[in-house]
């Protein structure tokens, strides 16, 4: 296809009148969006970095303090604790949706009646309004009246305090996050499964491989790039998870579920310590930019493999 295009272009260039014709510039299409991006995305970045170098509290004059806000971070026990909470929350919120999402994708890859409709139902948790979901989960976590403790009692397990106990609050929130975001992993892996050719499965069937062997030695290696992408996206979303945590626990009990994002909210909009809040935002931001670079690198790789796939 590209050969034909180049030949056409060459033909155009060889014609005398067409020499004046130049490929048009597409800048006018991009400029309005560029203005918006500069105003609501670039400007806040720059301003945040500048603010992070100031002692800036609402209601008092600002003073330039250099890197003092940054130096305060490692000595702030609440921040250090928040980093720990964020990491454990993120690790669990990556692994569990990956496992369940892959299993779900294998099932949804089969053909059965009403598959599209059921897939629509399955992705409802990730599309539903997080605050509305959080509200119902809060009711379900209720130690006396919640349905979860009733379900536990049906299988003979003792009642739990869920989000009201500092040791179980993070796993409980991860339960919600997993319920909510397993569908995204499922969709990405399902896309990967659709790209697998049928030949390896046919020869495996002839060789008499069982279901587990087929999954372990054919499916899993072939969907690995997609699992990687899904894990990366899950990691970025879990790191900055806010709505569910904030609406269910506000970081509590005490500060047992306070992640970086929730702490950032408190510093900036409860204590109005905007300078220190900006420093937290910058550090948090750098963490995510590093992840973004990784994601882009992976996107390129995925693009490359899918191009190979379409040419084959």
């Amino acid at each position, binding site marked *: 296809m590209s050969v034909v295009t180049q030949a056409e272009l060459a033909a155009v260039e060889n014609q005398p009148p067409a020499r004046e014709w130049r490929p048009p510039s597409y800048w006018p299409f991009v400029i309005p969006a560029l203005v918006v991006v500069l105003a*609501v*995305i670039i400007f806040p970045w720059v301003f945040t970095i500048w603010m992070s170098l100031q002692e800036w509290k609402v209601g008092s004059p600002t003073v330039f303090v250099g890197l003092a806000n940054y130096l305060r971070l490692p000595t702030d026990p609440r921040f250090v604790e928040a980093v720990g909470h964020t990491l454990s929350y993120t690790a669990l919120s990556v692994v569990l949706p990956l496992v369940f999402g892959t299993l779900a994708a294998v099932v949804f890859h089969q053909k059965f009646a009403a598959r599209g409709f059921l897939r629509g139902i399955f992705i409802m948790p990730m599309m539903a*309004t997080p605050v509305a979901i959080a509200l119902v989960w809060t009711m379900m976590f209720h130690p006396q009246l919640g349905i979860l403790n009733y379900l536990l009692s049906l299988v003979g397990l003792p009642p739990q305090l869920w989000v009201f106990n500092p040791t179980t609050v993070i796993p409980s929130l991860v339960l919600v996050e997993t319920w909510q975001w397993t569908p995204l992993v499922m969709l990405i892996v399902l896309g990967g499964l659709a790209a697998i050719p049928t030949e390896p499965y046919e020869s495996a069937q002839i060789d008499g491989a069982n279901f587990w062997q087929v999954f372990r030695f054919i499916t899993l290696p072939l969907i690995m790039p997609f699992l990687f992408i899904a894990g990366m996206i899950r990691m970025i979303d879990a790191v900055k998870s*806010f709505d569910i945590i904030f609406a269910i626990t506000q970081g509590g009990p005490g500060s047992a579920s306070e992640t970086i994002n929730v702490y950032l909210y408190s510093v900036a*909009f409860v204590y109005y310590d905007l300078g220190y809040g900006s420093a937290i935002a910058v550090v948090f931001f750098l963490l995510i930019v590093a992840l973004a670079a990784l994601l882009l690198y992976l996107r390129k790789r995925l693009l490359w493999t899918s191009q190979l796939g379409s040419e084959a």
Partner: protein
Amino acid sequence: MNPRAILGRIGLWLSVFVIVSPAILFFLWMASLSLKFEIDNASYPPVFIPEHFAWRNYADVFASNRFLTYFSNSLVVTGCATALAMLVGVPAGYGIARMAAHKSAIVILIARITPGLSYLIPLFLLFQWLGLLGTLVPQIIIHLVVTVPIVIWIMIGYFETTPLELEEAALIDGATRWQVFRHVALPIARPGLAVAFILAVIFSWNNFVFGIVLAGRETRTLPVAVYNMISFDQLSWGPLAAAALIVTAPVLLLTVMAQRQIVAGLTAGAVKGG
């Protein structure tokens, strides 16, 4: 059908049931909570289907005079933020795809994955300084942080797959690039427009973090209104669940009706706002 195939069929349906049930049971339980009187919601063991449905819970939600304000706030913020995003984002996606300016996609990507709170500190000060905080304008503007990257990202992906030959032919025939965009590229990209529009609407509608900082008493959107009901109204579960269901119902309906477009968009860009 031989016995093995039948067994496989049963196994398949069993796994489908297991996989879909957390979603179905959750939303059924949500509906059940919203349709029960307090006495049923406070009983143990739980009542699943009450003898008398408390339709009053829904009537109460709609009757509270603020609810309609919040609903129209949500409509205005999501409507404006999505319309503006389509207006600037669709041409931008087209331009970026045609220029093959893959480096600009980095900005979009970073914008998409930066936590919403990072934008809020400087923009909050800016809006305060401009005296806009009592209006819906700050929320409309900051929702662009969510909607613009979604639209651009999806449209880049879409315009990259549409054929170039027609556009080149039109250009050589003397059409301006605007005419080419308007009459050749845009009609072909209609399914992509639908995907971008639906996802921008959903993620703007669902957004919570911008509202809790920027919304005042009169300018709350529905998610913020629901959050405030949690803190003040801990014990009346029926009306609370009814309000939650009303807030998320438009999105759930859209999800089931447009699941094909949503799935296409999400697998293309794995978008999530905020």
